[in-house]
Structures are given as C-alpha cells and as structure tokens.
C-alpha cells in the first residue's frame, strides 16, 4: 500500500511537471515548433530582452502586482486588526464577506467587477472606463482576502495580554499597534504580501474582463498572442518567471521556518552573556 502511494505520488508529480519541462525545453529551442527540437540556443532569451513591447507588458504586470499587493497589504493588515477586535457575530459576517472573492470562481469576480464598471461608465456617460484604475481596483479586491487570511491567524496566536501590557506601560493604542502588535504579526503580513503579489502577477481571468486596451498585463496579452502562433520568446519568459516564483517560494518557506522556530538566536551585543540561572 505504501509502495502504491509512493509510486502514485511520483507519477502525479511527473504529470504536474511534464508540461513545465516541455516549456522550459522549448525556451532553449531554436525552432518555433515545440514538438520538434531543432537545436539548443539562448537566442530566445536574447530576443526576449530586445522585445520592447514584451518588456513593457512585463513592466505593466509587475507594476500592477507591486501596487496592488502593497495596497492590499496595508488595507488588509488594518482590516485584520480591526476584525480581530470585533464581537463574534460581526466578525463572522465580515469573514464570510472576505471569503467571497476566494470561493467565487475568477470568472464571476471578473464579470461582476466588469459589470460594476460598465454600470458606472453608463452613469458617467463614458465608454472607456476600463483601464489602469479599474485593473488596480480589481487586483486589490482579490488580493485582500489573501492578506487578511494570512494575518488573522497570527493575531490569534498572539498573547492577548501583550497589547494591554503595552498600554499599561504607557503606549497609546496606536503606539501599541506599531511597537508590539506589528512586530508579532509581521511574518503573516509578509507572507500575505508575497501571496498577493504572486496571485496578481499571474492573474489572467479577472484582468481579462476588467482591463481596457490602454493598459495590458502580460497574461492577458499572452492570451491574445495565443490566438496566433506563439512566439518562442514567450517560453523564455515563462522560464524566467518560473525561476522567479521558485525563488519567492523558497524565501517564503525559509521565513516560515524561521518564524516557527521558538528560539531566535540573536547575536550577543557584548561579552556579558552569563549562563547562570
């Protein structure tokens, strides 16, 4: 039985990664047909960096991801602190609302926001409401739950007396938040921010519905590309993104490991560290 599980696991992982390997290999292919490998080359990467329009799209994606994850982190962390202090009934209500963008399929979120913007557009008698700002709003909207659901457990784990101790020692509520609560929940804030960034960077469906032709992100443009034969430098881009996401995930993992370790050994400032009890 155990052998069966292990074999199955190996097969599934293989299944998961075969297409990724196909793409990685394709990025080094000098030919344009993925199925036929002509010769090994780095030229696609070179093409990638020379393609200004592609780089502009990449810049757009990164810009949106950074801005939206930043906004979502600030808003979401504040929200998590507020929700943490709410009475049980109100808290449950708000958390249910927070869950909505996560339980709804992307297409519903995208469509509902697009309709909202269309409605507002009608009211303002404008046809071209979709653009950078609507995209940003949409991204922040679906990033927020990731931040909130990442910070809330950290707030729950925190010793509830810590805030009171800070007040007792002379902190105003704002100071207590800054000096005591925030350092405690920082791992949750950071991992929430990273998750939001990753989700934004890769989002296709929601962006597809709320973006105008003025400001386009990479995934949406890839979709448009895929209606024609795909250019090989996209595969190079994919490989680079793969490396970047891998790096982010490793960093996140290391952060989690460090956080769960109870002893965070800090270096001694001087030689006075006596070990006697």
């Amino acid at each position, binding site marked *: 039985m155990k052998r069966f599980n292990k074999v199955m696991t190996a097969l599934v992982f293989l299944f998961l990664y075969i297409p*990724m390997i196909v793409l990685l290999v394709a990025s080094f292919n000098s030919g344009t*047909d993925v199925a036929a490998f002509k010769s090994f080359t780095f030229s696609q990467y070179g093409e990638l960096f020379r393609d200004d329009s592609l780089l502009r799209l990449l810049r757009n994606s990164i810009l949106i991801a950074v801005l939206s994850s930043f906004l979502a982190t600030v*808003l979401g962390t*504040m929200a998590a602190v507020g929700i943490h202090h709410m009475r049980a009934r109100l808290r449950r209500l708000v958390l249910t609302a927070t869950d909505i963008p996560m339980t709804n*399929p992307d297409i519903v979120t995208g469509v*509902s*926001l697009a309709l909202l913007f269309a409605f507002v557009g009608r009211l303002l008698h404008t046809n071209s409401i979709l653009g950078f700002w609507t995209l940003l709003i*949409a991204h922040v909207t679906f990033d927020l739950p990731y931040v909130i659901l990442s910070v809330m457990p950290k707030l729950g784990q925190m010793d509830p007396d810590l805030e009171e101790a800070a007040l007792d020692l002379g902190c105003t509520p704002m100071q207590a938040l800054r000096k005591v609560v925030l350092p405690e929940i920082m791992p949750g804030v950071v991992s929430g921010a990273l998750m939001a960034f990753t989700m934004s960077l890769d989002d296709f469906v929601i962006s597809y519905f709320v973006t105008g032709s003025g400001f386009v992100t990479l995934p949406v443009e890839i979709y448009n590309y*895929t209606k024609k034969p795909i250019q090989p430098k996209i595969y190079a881009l994919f490989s680079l993104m793969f490396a970047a996401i891998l790096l982010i995930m490793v960093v996140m993992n290391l952060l989690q490991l460090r956080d769960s370790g109870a002893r965070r050994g800090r270096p001694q400032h001087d030689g006075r560290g006596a070990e006697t009890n």
Partner: protein
Amino acid sequence: MRNRLLSAPYLVWVVLFTVVPLGVVFYFAFTDSITGRFTLANMAGMATYLPIIMRSIWLSLISAMICLVIGYPVAYCIAQASPTRQKFYLMLVMLPMCMSFLLRTLAWVSLLEDTGIINNFLRALGLTPLPLIRTNGAVVLGMVYNYIPYMILPLSTVIMKIDPRLIEAAQDLGCNNAMVFRRVVLPLSVPGIVSGVTMVFVPAVSTFYISQKLGSTGTTLIGDVIESQFKAAYNPNLGAAMSLVLMVLIFLCVGAMNRFSGTDGEEVMAP
C-alpha cells in the same frame, strides 16, 4: 476600542467592490439589454443553454473524481512525510499553481496535438497517431492537470491533522493497515475530501480557456458562453444571466457537498 475602526476602509471596499458588483450582476441579468427595463427574458434564455450547463457539470464532476482518486495517495504520502520533506513536497505542488496557467495549458496542446509531442513519439515507434486533442477527454485532462493541486493541498492538510494516537488506538484494538485506513483515516479525511472536490469543481465548471484550447465546438462550457457574451457579442445582460446561473449552480453544489460531509461524518463517528 479604536482598533475596530481600522477595518473601516476595508469594510467600505468590500461593500463597494465585492457585494455591490454581485448586486449589479443581478441587475443586468434581469434587465433588457436595449430598453433597460426589468425582464425575465434573459433568464428564460438560459434554458437553451441547458446542454452546455449539463456538460459543464458532468465534465467538472468527472475531473473532480479523477483528482480525488489520483490525488488521495499523494496527499496521504505527503501527510506521512517528515516535516521538512512535507514543506518541500507542498512547495512542489503549489509551484505550478503560481505559474501561468495559460502557458501550461498550451503546453498540453503541444503535447496532445496531431503533430504534437506524444503523437510524434508514437509515430517514431511506428504506431498510429491518436486523436487526442479537441475531445472531451482532453478537456478533462486539462481540468485535472490544472486543478489537482487544489485537491492535494486541503486533503493533505486534513490528513496531517489526524491525531496519530487514533491510529495507534485502532491498531491496538486489532486493525490491520487496510482496516485502519478504511475505518479511521478515510472517515476522518472526509472534510478534506469535500473541501478538495469543491475546490476542483468550482473553477472547473467555470473555466473557458481549457475548453477553448483543448476542446472543440462540441465542448463549449458555461465559461465559454459568458466570455463570448462579454467579448465577442457584447450582450452583458445575457452574460450576467449566465453568470447568475453559474453562481446559483456553485452555491447549490457547495451546499449539497457540505451537507453530504456533515451527515457522513456523523454516521462514521458512531462505533
């Protein structure tokens, strides 16, 4: 406490951009596209899409089941691994989720095409090429491929949380491995199963890209309809109506699955 006010900006945001848009969907679904007056015509028009709706449900269910069958052993394996290995495996499972799902699906196109990698391989072996792409099977494959991490993650989390002492108690009372699995692990993992099936079913039933790339005109799904109403034929009212159908469908299915998990768990807890 002034702390509660901190969540005020967020609450405003949620209402404006999560709750209100859902209301807008309702509005458009029940409004005539030209006159703007209340009408049930859009919703009535949904009846013509019934075959598409059924197909979406059917293919998504199959995908969810396949994900369950092949994902369960993986989740079990991960749950049994040492903590550092676990984190590593989980990272491996999550990594594809963060990568462009467009490109990964396209990779399957290259694999499944008549002139694709698999068929090239078959030809090289002297076998006849198979019509792999543009079939229901290809769509299911695409769904399983894209959403199996959503099955593995919740399942492994739930299995990990099973108190090992329960397993020891069962062994102590005379269960061999197969019985431990059937009578202890499986029932206790039901919340994970429900969670995983839901998390596969929901995106699967609403996808449009997978069916476009790996399917044919015979595999149109709900998502395709919505997408075409919004982008090709600009009829947001019909699109909204379809979205409403989708939302109701998901709500019903999730509700049914939750109830299913509720009673199932209770039955099994009794000795």
